[in-house]
């Protein structure tokens, strides 16, 4: 069996050259979220500066480190000193850093987030001790934002594909045993033991077999898979190769959302490079194992996250699920045995094989092993990618890493699992991240979206939002989901318009259990979760909406009347400027007044008032 020894040594030299470059190297986080924050302009400005002023420096575009609130991120590595990571680097700030630190030796500590590599820079702490990073253990994201996603040698230099080659040596049975020992469970949301899923497909009769990567990631506000694919596509390919080797599949598909063009590009480049090195294609490394991959673009349907709908979509049919059994492991793509895993699941596999299942199972709780990547969003200070070991409590994520609710807001709940998930109220914040524990609390690990909500979030409105999403995304095949979810949404719309009636809550519960019980696929099966869990923990808000016709969070327009508390209003006039319909009047420094007729309840004053003088009646 060929071992690519030459490639590895070349890669190592290349990586070493980069680390010990005689010229300063600037790593710019150029993933989708980085570019959205302006990374593209920063890179442009940097290159023009270097060219015009003939500065000896090198720019490397890398994936995303995951600290969304601090984007764009630039890591500067001057020869002889450790890498320093800077946050919120816009086009001006990059010039400053260039002049003062790259050319000079002022490390601009005020913008620095921390040093990435060992070594000291005065008045700059360690990046790993940054509040967002302290609780994190980065295994899946270890390469994201570090390596150049378009350059395979970086990946190889950091033990890329060694797991795969070890698997080839171990043979399928031993490799499977390692995955079993690791206790890896599906990161797509259901948490089904991965080794067992592979075992089903492996023993199913029928040739050829297929492996699929479910990169549909339809949950609103979830972007973990995107970051992995954009930052470290090779880990997915390697993981799939190992899985295919164990299962005995010779071809695989990566089903990527149409809305992730950058991920698709990076994956395609990774596939091309892997094929060039003979790590994909026929008789890989003369091992007799052949495997190749193809990318299939999703057509923008959330339902295609469900495995049978995904398979239908890959086959070219309308993406709508079918009744199971038979499960995909027996009869999936073109009726042949098929194994589907989530992006994060696949990218965990190489490390498990390389370092052994035991080392992986060392992290996490008794039932849920390894780390989980969350996308922490919503009303929290530090939004971004969070990879924590299983067992970390929700409080640590929201408060320690997330920095707690925003200024002057009180935490209300965190929604976990997107449209199929449930909400976790403050009293349950000490709930550890664990498949089964979350299940018991009516929530669900889901793909990893964590949406933090504070007192200005109306839970009924959140439930209505998720139902509205599901009404659009339901494939419409089975009565329960098509009609049930639509009717639940109608009820919530009525409640939010102040036309709630007695019995609506009971009807919602009844409908909820019916839809969960009778729907054909898991989309319908989990659709009522947002409503049922908000009902479970925030029944009072529903009662308020129905009986008192008020929405304390000030969100449901038709139930809200804003008024200014004369005691607290300082008359600063901020709200007068922002009010779109000039409904607020009053003298400077005197308590102001809202004219109820003109007010359209947009809530801008309520949000912006520095003194919280605006009250909700």
């Amino acid at each position, binding site marked *: 069996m060929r071992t690519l020894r030459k490639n590895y040594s070349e890669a190592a030299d290349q990586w070493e050259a980069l680390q010990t470059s005689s010229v300063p190297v600037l790593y710019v986080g150029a993933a989708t979220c980085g570019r959205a924050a302006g990374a593209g302009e920063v890179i442009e400005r940097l290159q023009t500066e270097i060219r015009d002023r003939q500065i000896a420096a090198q720019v490397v575009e890398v994936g995303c480190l995951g600290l969304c609130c601090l984007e764009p991120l630039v890591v500067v590595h001057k020869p002889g000193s450790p890498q320093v990571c800077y946050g919120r680097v816009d086009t001006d700030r990059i010039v400053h850093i260039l002049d003062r630190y790259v050319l000079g030796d002022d490390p601009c500590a005020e913008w620095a987030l921390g040093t990435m590599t060992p070594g000291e820079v005065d008045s700059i702490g360690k990046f790993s001790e940054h509040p967002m990073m302290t609780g994190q253990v980065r295994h899946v994201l270890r390469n994201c934002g570090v390596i150049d996603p378009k350059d395979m040698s970086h990946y190889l230099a950091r033990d890329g594909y060694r797991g795969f080659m070890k698997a080839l040596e171990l043979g399928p049975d031993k490799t499977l045993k390692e995955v079993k020992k690791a206790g890896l469970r599906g990161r797509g949301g259901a948490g089904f033991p991965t080794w067992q899923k592979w075992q089903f497909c492996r023993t199913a009769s029928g040739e050829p077999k297929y492996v699929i990567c479910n990169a549909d990631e339809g949950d609103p506000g979830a972007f973990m898979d995107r970051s992995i694919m954009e930052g470290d596509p090779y880990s997915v390919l390697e993981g799939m190769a190992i899985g295919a080797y164990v299962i005995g599949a010779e071809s695989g598909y990566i089903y990527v959302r149409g809305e992730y063009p950058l991920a698709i590009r990076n994956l395609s480049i990774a596939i091309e490079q892997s094929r060039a090195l003979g790590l994909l294609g026929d008789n890989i490394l003369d091992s007799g194992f052949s495997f190749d991959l193809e990318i299939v673009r999703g057509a923008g349907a959330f339902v295609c996250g469900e495995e049978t709908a995904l398979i239908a979509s890959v086959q070219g049919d309308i993406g709508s699920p*079918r009744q199971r059994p*038979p499960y995909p492991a027996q009869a999936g793509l073109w009726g042949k045995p098929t194994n589907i895993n989530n992006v994060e699941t696949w990218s965990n596999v190489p490390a498990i094989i390389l370092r052994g299942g035991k080392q992986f199972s060392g992290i996490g709780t008794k039932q849920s092993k390894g780390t989980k990547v969350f996308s922490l969003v919503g009303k929290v200070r530090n939004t971004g990618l969070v990879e924590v070991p299983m067992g970390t409590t929700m409080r640590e994520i929201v408060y320690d890493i997330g920095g707690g609710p925003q200024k002057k807001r009180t935490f209300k709940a965190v929604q976990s699992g997107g449209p199929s998930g449930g909400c976790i109220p403050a009293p349950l914040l000490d709930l550890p991240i664990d498949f089964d524990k979350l299940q018991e609390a009516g929530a669900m690990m889901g793909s990893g979206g964590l949406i933090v909500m504070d007192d200005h979030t109306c839970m009924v409105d959140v439930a209505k939002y998720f139902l509205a999403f599901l009404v659009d995304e339901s494939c*419409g*095949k089975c*009565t329960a989901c098509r009609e049930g979810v*639509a009717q639940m949404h109608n009820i919530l719309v009525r409640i939010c318009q102040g036309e709630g009636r007695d019995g609506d809550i009971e009807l919602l519960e009844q409908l909820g259990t019916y839809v969960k*019980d*009778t729907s054909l696929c898991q989309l319908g099966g989990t659709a009522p979760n947002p409503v049922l869990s908000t009902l479970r923990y925030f029944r009072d808000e529903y009662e308020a909406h129905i009986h008192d016709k008020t929405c304390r969070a000030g969100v449901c327009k038709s139930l809200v009347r804003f008024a200014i508390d004369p005691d607290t209003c300082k008359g600063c006039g901020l709200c007068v400027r922002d009010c779109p319909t000039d409904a607020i009047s009053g003298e400077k420094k005197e308590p102001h007044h809202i004219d109820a007729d003109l007010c359209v309840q947009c809530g801008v004053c309520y949000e912006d008032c520095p003194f919280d003088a605006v009250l909700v009646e």
Partner: protein
Amino acid sequence: MITLTIDGQQVEVEPGKTILDAAKSLGKVIPTLCYHPAVPAAGACRICVVEVVAGDRPGLVPACAYPAKEGMDIQTQSDRVMQSRRMTLQLLLARSPGAEVIQDMARDHGITENPFPERAKQTGDKSEKCIMCGLCVRLCQQIIGASAICFDGRGPDRKVSTPYNNQSDVCLGCGACAFVCPTGAIDPADYSPSPIEKIPNEFNCGLDSRTPIHIPFPQAVPNKPLIDRDNCIRFKTGGCGACETICPAGAINYDMEDEFVEEEVGAIIAATGYEIMDPSIYEEYGYGRYPDVVTSLEFERMVSASGPTNGELTRPSNGEPPKTIVFLQCIGSRREVNGKPYCSNICCMYTAKHAILYKHKVHDGQAFVFFMDVRAAGKNYDQFVRRVVKEQIATYVRGRVSKVFARGDKLIVRGADTLSGTQVEIAADMVVLAAALVPSSGIRELSQKLRVGFDEHGFLLEAHPKLRPVDTNTAGVFLAGCCHSPKDIPESVAQAGAAASKALGLVCHTRLSREPTIGIVDESSCNGCFECEGVCAYGAISAKELKDKKGNTLATVANINQGLCQGCGACAATCRSKSIEVQGYRDDQLFAAINAINR
């Protein structure tokens, strides 16, 4: 085999069968909407959910699509199941307020009111009855193979339509989708440019339509369906094939061809029956112009339980029960000019029967009969007719009708009442014409094939009207029923019995008795020219070599096969040397007959 328990009862099914199959074999009824045996199950409507209590992942599963597993414990009526069914029905009631099927099912499940508001109708939403079960789309795509209709859109706004919602150019117009639709929501005419030609049901005189594969009529023998090749989609375009997939006996084979079966038989009984003359040639009665003027055969079908209206007598024009009905006798019969001179024998009796049937169907209705003279000669026939008159079931008016014309929605029947000598006008809702009986079409070709004579009306000729009424001039061919002359069932049955016994008499002996009048050859004078063989229609003449003792041939002469010779005498007339005589019609006997003119 897989054993499982349903509602506590053990049942065994083959592997691959679904829970619904198992339930069916136990005689348990599970409601279905989107299920049809000929279409792959989809589990879309969720009305058939049952509860898996043990033996597999517990929860509700669709019986129609969920495979039965060893050791499963299923409950089909548990609370959880009934609650789910009721909720599904309520949701469907909101979804499709127009679907009666759903309303009936809801009533059966004790649903009185519906908490859910009716769904706002989308623009262009043609049908309020559609419950989006997808049966029609699956059938069209997977069974018929035309894929003319498909789903458009997603979620609650999903609807069945053609691509871009314009007329389909692949729709075969077979109407199968309408056939399987559980709520009657789909009408193929919405999608297919070519109008769906309804196939008139011949047995019901075209009053209703039938499917290409059908059993000709309820009492057909053998009582088996046949495929009408001209209208069957499989033969027209190669599509469909639904009957083949659904037939449990696998009895359908599209490659079979009609074949001619030659049978050597000893006797043939012609019993080809009759047809009703088309009365539209008489303008005055308005048949063909007014829908409410019908023939007696059409009336017979209307009142029959297996008829087009399942026995409910309704006026073809507006579907109302006819309050006044007029029966006109002798339409086309007993007419010297432009009609049939003979009496059709059975009309008087069936009209009396029709009057009684009419009374059963429309109790408060009034019936009139215009007649010339009632022919009720059979056993108890006259008493039957007199009862109809006495019990005022129908008013018998002796006289002919001159004209039937429409006035408003009534039909005015103007005729004479010869007993009172006055002209009569009746405003009727329906007019029944007792049209003349004529032999069934094709009788002429048949008679020439059987070499049996027929009269100018086409009725086959009996050998002798008095002495041999069931025989024909051709040995071995017998007659029965209306092909000989109009007659009713008792007479037909009697004639059939006679014909059958005659036929048996012919075939059950070992030897055949023949008329002695056959040809004999005088071998001494025969020249062997064989011109006789040329004219013999039965191939009865062959060559025979006269040999001397030593075996050399002296002469070749004609020889007549006595079994084949029918005694026609053509050979005798053709033989120049007068070497052939026909027994019984010898030349000398005929000469003697000629001489008789001198006596």
